[in-house]
């Protein structure tokens, strides 16, 4: 039977993964975007006390299996957080529910190692030398999508016509999804980014800059975060996500020697959180500390309700706020579907940052 691989819906990351798999010659299955149905399935198949990303991911896996996936890439791996245990439980639950799928874990602590491992697994015995080119394509793809992701976040608050930036972004993704080789990518790179650059922007419009830190699943799942990035964009906020691929790959050097952004962030954040406590907590705090050095007007920290690592990060951010005077809004998300509380906080936070800026003048 032909292998059909599915990657859970995770914003641009799943699109990158799919495009890469296509370049490798692997068939894929695209699960539907995370929705209320995903949540219903996830809640049914998960322990009640587990965090919302775990529940939604399980729903994502089921929806992928329903669409005919034979292989599912699961996010987790030992040591990350509860997700590490969840993966094992979820794999078992899938079998219990009668889905005969092979599961593969992408360990969030060893992403590079696992990308290579999974590439070999899906390449069905092709020699490693033949995999060099696809991996170089993947790196170029990440570089391009980084530029696109940043671009849409910058364009949204400045667009003259509402929705123009998002339409250009969607058109750009259609082009990217069709790319198969590095040559094609390099040839079309300027055209693709040009789609976004063609959006009419009001460069004089004053915008706020807000750093978005916290759990990656929450940041990349509009269903869960009530379309946070788009809502902020409409309120005139340029969002800076903490995670970017570009400028983060470093030789395995000790932190104090690293010159890349990740290294600088680690040094800025070490005052508030010195070691890994699971999940994305350390990166969250490190990036927040670096952004607090004048890069942003304020920080929004998003976390799934009762996420242990992000709760630790939240306390560290309280210290950061007190010492550096950078406003921090912490939002935690769970199964609730009412958006009123989130919107009230966002509006109040934006009001507050504007008056802080006026006062600085």
């Amino acid at each position, binding site marked *: 039977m032909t292998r059909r691989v599915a990657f859970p819906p995770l914003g641009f990351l799943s699109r990158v993964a799919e495009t890469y798999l296509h370049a490798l010659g692997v068939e894929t299955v695209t699960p539907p*975007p995370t929705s*209320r149905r995903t949540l219903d399935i996830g809640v049914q198949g998960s322990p009640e006390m587990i965090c919302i990303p775990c529940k939604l991911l399980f729903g994502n896996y089921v929806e992928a299996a329903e669409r005919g996936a034979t292989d599912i890439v699961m996010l987790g791996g030992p040591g990350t957080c509860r997700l590490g245990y969840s993966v094992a439980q979820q794999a078992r639950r899938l079998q219990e529910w009668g889905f005969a799928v092979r599961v593969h874990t992408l360990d969030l602590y060893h992403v590079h190692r696992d990308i290579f491992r999974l590439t070999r697994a899906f390449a069905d015995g092709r020699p490693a030398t033949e995999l060099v080119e696809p991996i170089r394509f993947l790196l170029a793809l990440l570089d391009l999508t980084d530029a696109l992701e940043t671009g849409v976040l910058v364009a949204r608050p400045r667009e003259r016509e509402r929705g123009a930036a998002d339409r250009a972004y969607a058109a750009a993704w259609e082009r990217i999804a069709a790319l198969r080789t590095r040559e094609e990518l390099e040839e079309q790179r300027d055209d693709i980014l040009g789609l976004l650059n063609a959006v009419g922007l009001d460069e004089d419009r004053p915008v706020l800059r807000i750093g978005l830190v916290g759990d990656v699943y929450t940041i990349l799942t509009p269903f869960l975060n*009530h*379309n946070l990035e788009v809502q902020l964009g409409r309120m005139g906020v340029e969002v800076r996500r903490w995670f970017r691929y570009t400028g983060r790959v470093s030789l395995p050097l000790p932190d104090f020697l690293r010159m890349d952004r990740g290294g600088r962030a680690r040094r800025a954040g070490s005052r508030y959180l010195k070691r890994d406590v699971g999940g994305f907590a350390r990166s969250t705090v490190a990036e927040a500390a670096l952004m607090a050095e004048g890069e942003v007007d304020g920080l929004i920290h998003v976390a799934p309700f009762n996420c242990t690592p992000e709760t630790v990060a939240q*306390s560290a951010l309280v210290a950061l706020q007190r010492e550096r005077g950078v406003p921090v809004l912490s939002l*935690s998300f769970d199964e609730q579907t009412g958006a009123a509380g989130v*919107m009230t*906080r966002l*509006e*109040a936070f934006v009001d507050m940052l504007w008056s802080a800026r006026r006062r600085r003048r």
Partner: protein
Amino acid sequence: MDEVFLGVDVGSVTTKFAAVDPQGNLVASDYLRTAGQPVQAVREGLSRMATLLPSRVRVLGVGTTGSGRQLAGAIVGADVVKNEITAHAVAALHFVPDVRTVIDIGGQDSKLILLRDGVVVDFAMNSVCAAGTGSFLEQQAYRLGIPVEELGRRALRSSNPVRIAGRCTVFAESDMIHKQQMGFPVDDILYGLCQALVRNYLNNLALGKTIEPPVVFQGGVAANAGVVRAFREALGTEILVPPHHEVMGALGAALLAREWSDGRPSQFRGFDVVHADVQTTSFECRACPNLCEIAQIRMDGQVMARWGGRCDRWEVL
């Protein structure tokens, strides 16, 4: 002719109205229970305001706030629709210009707003818990057979408060029942309850935040002298309760409308809007698997507003 700015604050438990004159002085206010029917509450409140105000009054601007601010805004024709944090801060500043801390406890939510030099610098709202709100006090007062209005006065008489678990309404209730069956005086239990609410508030909302005087306490629960006393003792500072503490959100909305006005014409539909036929309906959008619940407001047959979706598919009329 008298001129006013109106403010409407549609909260989860009560709906508040305030009118200020062009100088910002409160000229009339009122509040009533939302009773799960915000449309009805807005209409009834508005007609009551019409009788409280001079008959030939001119409304120069309207602001709405509270969790029902969009709905109220669509019905009355609001010029400003503002979140309740900003509205409460504006109102507190109006009474105490050098206020540094605003404590607001309403029926179903509580807020903490920190200000420095007249600007909001930090805030918190409770999100997952009702143990620190008015509904909790009301429920427990009801259980003890005491009118909630009397709770504060009775709590003041306590000299030896009983410790009640404050983390969660469920634990608090079983703790209270236990203490009551042990024979502790009701006044001491009531003040223990006020202290539990304050402890819950300070441990949740104020976590990691510095509360500095002057402290203004507003919202419906500020009427409760027992809670005021518990805050004063816990914070070791004077607690200022403004004269119209229960309508501060509405007052803030009215002041924001006044700020917005600057001679611009108001969208206010007039007091006659209370006679309009307002229908709210809802439907499930099937455009994607999110199946958002879209609420729709019709006034005299015409669709005034829609919301509730994760995207803006239905918001543009």
